[in-house]
């Protein structure tokens, strides 16, 4: 299991990219942190969630 924003999810082995797409996040306007480390955008397709990972996903908006 993977903890995403505090909620357990059965997504171990799924890449950051595929998870974000399936959860309807805009990949351009999001920051992803796995176990406290920021995941660079260039790693989204290669990096998969591991069992026990703690993930934080934060969305950004640009209005002012």
């Amino acid at each position, binding site marked *: 299991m993977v903890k995403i924003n505090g909620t357990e999810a059965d997504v171990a082995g799924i890449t950051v990219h595929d998870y974000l797409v399936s959860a309807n996040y805009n990949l351009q*306007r999001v920051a992803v942190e796995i176990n406290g480390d920021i995941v660079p*955008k260039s790693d989204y397709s290669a990096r998969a969630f591991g069992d026990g990972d703690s993930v934080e996903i934060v969305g950004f908006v640009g209005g*002012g």
Partner: protein
Amino acid sequence: MRADQIERYARNIALAELGESGQEKLLSARVLVIGAGALGGASLAYLSAAGAGVIGVADFDKVELSNLQRQIIHGVDVLGEYKTVSAASFIRRLNPGVEVHIHTEKVTADNILPLIADYDFVLDCTDRFGVKLLINDACVIAGKPFSHAGVLRFGGQAMTYVPGRGACLRCLLGGVPADGDGKTAVSAGVLGAVAGMLGTVQATEAVKYITGAGKLLTGRILSINALDWKVCVTDIPSPDPDCAVCGAHPTITSLKENEGEYFPR
């Protein structure tokens, strides 16, 4: 402090975290607000009420009727006027003790470094990711603390950058979104009261930074979704070591050379 200042700022001074010394710090602080719209209007109102000594206002836009649903410092009497001029008159009416400097120009890769050099703290109240990243990169390069915020529809986010004390905006976003700004307030809408919340968060961060009170939003992000009240603060324990501007080996060292990212054609 003069007797009238002690009276005016009595509720600030009553805050143990501020006191008279905190108010003195505010009175001698120089704060720059970039963007005098919804975020900027709320920030400017509370910063001037709090007694910030010098407030800079940078904006190149004029007041339009469709702004007034959320940009509360402007009114129908200043339609067509520059927002900087309108903001200055609002501030003077609220607190004539504040010295207002207006910068009625577009913030660019050429002028931002000399602009921010005159101030202790910067508030990014702009409405484009490109300019937000320009402000971020300029503040990182200049070693200048700043407050970031963005707002759209019923929500938004805010974070504070202080050199050496956590991630910058580029650590998190990577860069300006490749598809530009996507949905903006024009097409997606924005609730004025929610923009006001984020703007007052920024003013709060500025006051806290200046006075040393409390714990800033450095190394963490405040996210607000007012539609169903999901409010959270996400810790960002460390910056991205490979960040293009604040990392160990930055590739962005000249704003001018990176201008195409801030202002895509």
